[in-house]
């Protein structure tokens, strides 16, 4: 039963959707509208989507991985690391048709907050958006990485930190960072 004392007002969320497949883009927009999201900007091109960030104050970015000429991974890296990035902290949800674990790790290392393997459903998208709302993560910055703390989820331990996992404080740290 829904707790009426606590709820999400998704009409307050602004989202940029970037997917070069017009049908998938329509699908995502349709789901977002139905979930109550009113402020949506969309693009079929990652470079254009990046420009869109200059003028559209996005709370969340939803980006497809497999795009041309700029991939979603390059886009995420640009948002996080580009000196001129309008919003390096904006949460990024990455969509991908690929199921390889390596893809998840690459997305994580690019600073992606949430990784969704297609097919996409309304519930999956809702869950990912509310996960970002409910579990804001600190950002980590070092020589090699800038993005949300990568240890929130159990995506497998980064190399060399196995012995630290028993330490509760290590769960808040970023092993590789």
């Amino acid at each position, binding site marked *: 039963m829904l*707790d009426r004392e*606590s709820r999400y007002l998704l009409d307050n969320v602004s989202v940029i959707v970037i997917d070069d497949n017009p049908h998938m883009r329509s699908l995502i927009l349709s789901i977002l509208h*139905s979930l109550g999201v009113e402020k949506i900007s969309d693009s079929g091109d990652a470079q254009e989507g990046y420009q869109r960030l200059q003028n559209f104050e996005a709370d969340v970015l939803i980006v497809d991985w497999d795009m041309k000429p700029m991939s979603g991974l390059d886009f995420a890296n640009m948002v996080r690391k580009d000196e001129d990035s309008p919003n390096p902290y904006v949460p990024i949800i990455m969509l991908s048709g690929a199921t390889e674990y390596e893809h998840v790790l690459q997305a994580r290392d690019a600073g992606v907050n949430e990784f969704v393997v*297609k097919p996409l459903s309304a519930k999956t998208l809702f869950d990912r958006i509310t996960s970002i*709302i409910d579990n804001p993560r600190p950002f*980590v910055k070092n020589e090699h990485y800038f993005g949300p703390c990568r240890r929130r989820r159990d995506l497998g331990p980064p190399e060399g930190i196995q012995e630290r996992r028993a330490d509760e404080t290590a769960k808040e740290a970023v092993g590789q960072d």
Partner: protein
Amino acid sequence: MADIQFIKPPNALRKVKVGQGEALLDPFLIRRAETAVAALRDDDGNWGTDEFDQMDEALARLEKSGNDLAGLRALHRNLMDLRAQAASYGYALLGDIAGKAMEFSHLRKSLDENDLAILRVFLSAMRAIHKERRAGDGGPLGRDLFDCLAALADSGPE
């Protein structure tokens, strides 16, 4: 040891949640979204057709070149898009067939004449399912079709 900074980013999404406790999923919103997706699926009869055509082109290119890496990548990408679209639109059978074709092509570094002929059969099956608007898993007939295609794919040498 490299310097590490922990930064608490501005939380623009704080405004989105009312109340402190766990906010559960509102089933009405999900139902509304699922209905919208179903309507979009029925209205957007062109979904998948670009990918079918591109797959046709990629196969034609591979039939000429044999070991064309760019052609193989294009084929793989088309199949991945098809699988994602089909499954998202509730065409589970079509999505499964695209996934099987993807697996088949992915396991091979090059595709010979026989492999390409098998992929042509997959393409024909997917086009037929799409044309007939056979959403879902296709029932017993759909499972038989998938099993036949899978057997065909698994029969050849890798």
